[in-house]
């Protein structure tokens, strides 16, 4: 089974972004591997360790610095990587899921992948669209918000998060697209020997602009602004004061 894992370079989850000049200012901001993509790589590597998968290929779409993201994936255990280069912003401002999923579709068809694992959403654009959109383009089964995956390389049983709990789905025949949620696994830290080994692993580079896909956003971002701030709150001294405020000031309790 050949697994393709999408990994995205995003603003680090601990960073609070600033809105400036009608956009989000990314200058000198710490960037990291999207947490849900990290979970996807971890799952793929585990399937390889279980000898269910033969090969794990990591893929990213981003600027030249996105190679760092691929090196992390390789250090975690991916076999090789594909870097689709672009200087377009990938946080929804320019490159949007519609173009991203077409790029993935092309690579999946070239690579003959049996399984595509993606994070459930990028924590920058918060779209969560690439997984099901890619599955729709390919006509493949899809499972989103995967919390547990069991597979023998031919069929797959996935437990997924739903709005009211969980459900279990059986994919009778791979290939399929699965997006990964928080509970699926806890990603490993890349060890120093593996980081060194990763430097020798193959990374194929290709320009997004050369793939024959229209990369222009169909949804034009007209304006970016900060949400209106909340009115400043107060600290109360004790529970009696809190109850009094909730009852007589906020009017939210009897």
């Amino acid at each position, binding site marked *: 089974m050949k697994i393709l894992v999408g990994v995205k370079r995003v603003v680090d989850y601990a960073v609070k972004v600033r809105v400036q000049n009608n956009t989000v200012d990314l200058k000198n901001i710490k960037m990291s591997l999207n947490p849900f993509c990290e979970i996807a790589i971890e799952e793929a590597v585990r399937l390889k360790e279980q000898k269910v998968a033969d090969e794990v290929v990591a893929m990213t779409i981003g600027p030249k610095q996105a190679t760092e993201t691929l090196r992390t994936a390789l250090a975690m255990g991916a076999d090789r990587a594909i870097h689709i280069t672009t200087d377009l912003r990938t946080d929804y401002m320019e490159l949007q899921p519609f173009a991203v999923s077409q790029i993935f579709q092309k690579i999946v068809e070239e690579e003959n992948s049996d399984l595509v694992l993606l994070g459930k959403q990028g924590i920058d654009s918060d779209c969560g669209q690439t997984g099901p959109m890619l599955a729709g383009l390919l006509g493949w089964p899809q499972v989103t918000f995967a919390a547990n995956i069991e597979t023998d390389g031919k069929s797959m049983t996935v437990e997924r998060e739903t709005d009211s709990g969980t459900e279990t789905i059986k994919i009778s025949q791979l290939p399929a697209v699965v997006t990964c949620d928080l509970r699926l696994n806890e990603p490993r830290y890349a060890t120093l020997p593996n980081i060194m080994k990763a430097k020798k692993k193959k990374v194929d580079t290709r320009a997004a602009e050369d793939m024959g896909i229209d990369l222009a956003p169909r949804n034009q971002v007209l304006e970016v602004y900060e949400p209106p701030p909340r009115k400043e709150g107060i600290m109360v001294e004790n529970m009696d004061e809190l109850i009094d405020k*909730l009852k007589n000031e906020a009017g939210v309790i009897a």
Partner: protein
Amino acid sequence: MLSRTTRTLISSSTTATSACRRWASTLVVSEPLSKDGTLSAGTQSTVTAASQLGGDSLTLLVEEMPSQIPEGISNVLVYGKGGLSEYVSSAVQVAAEGSPYGHIVAPASKFGSTIVPRIAALLSLSPVTDVIEIVSPDTFVRPIYAGNALAKVQASDTTKLLSVRPTSFDKTPLVDAAGADVQELDVPAFAGSEFVSESTGNADKVDLGSASRIVSGGRALKSGDNFVLLDELATKLGDCAVGASRAAVDAGMAPNDTQVGQTGKVVAPDLYIAVGISGAIQHLSGMRDSKTIVAINTDPDAPIFSVADYGLKADLFEAVPELTGKLKT
């Protein structure tokens, strides 16, 4: 009841002969019905959003006919129960075939987020998801970066495919379904996957997405057993759901579907009480539109206090039982 509705079979190979001009009407995709056949609160809010889009008429697409439908819906398309996301996406494709809708709208829940992008691929559309405000029929606002930035977006596709954040739109009231035009769709089954089982926990618990009050616990609760303190407070408050931070869910203290946050549920109740929650960016993203926010935490520097209307520096193990005890029944 049914004698006043018309039932026509539409299959993907025949042209629909509906009387309304579908090019300017809006299709609302309903979430799964509850066990007693009622529409979800998320669907009711989605209808409200749909009514702001300026279409001629509102059509509801639903798995089976519910007992009541939202006010303003003029026709209902029924596609049959039991299908997975691939099947539901095909149902929308069948509905939209021939004469495209001006807008197709779904709730931005896990259900909606799973079908909308697939529908986008099937219909070759670029969706705008998690819309919190409708500025005009082609311009929408959506949050990015965990809601720390808002993007005003103009869609260029002829059919605008959207998912909307239910907490940003009031619920359209439900009315008796008599008088609505009902049509059955013939949707091909999807062979690739099948439903095995589901686990929905306690059906009696108050739904996090629609409760007017929420009490949420963080890792400071120390164990899942201690969440009973929050259950007791919620019961005393009434119409109150119990939520959790990602840290608490991560530590196995609370079920995943109670997680409030950027990658969990977004809530906006009248009252949100954050107990032992530090207030990471991702958590704030999921609850900061709540009308009144209370924070109880031993750390006065915890970021949660930056969004709280009322903050109390206290040990939750004393404060929560005290609050439960002092509240009027």
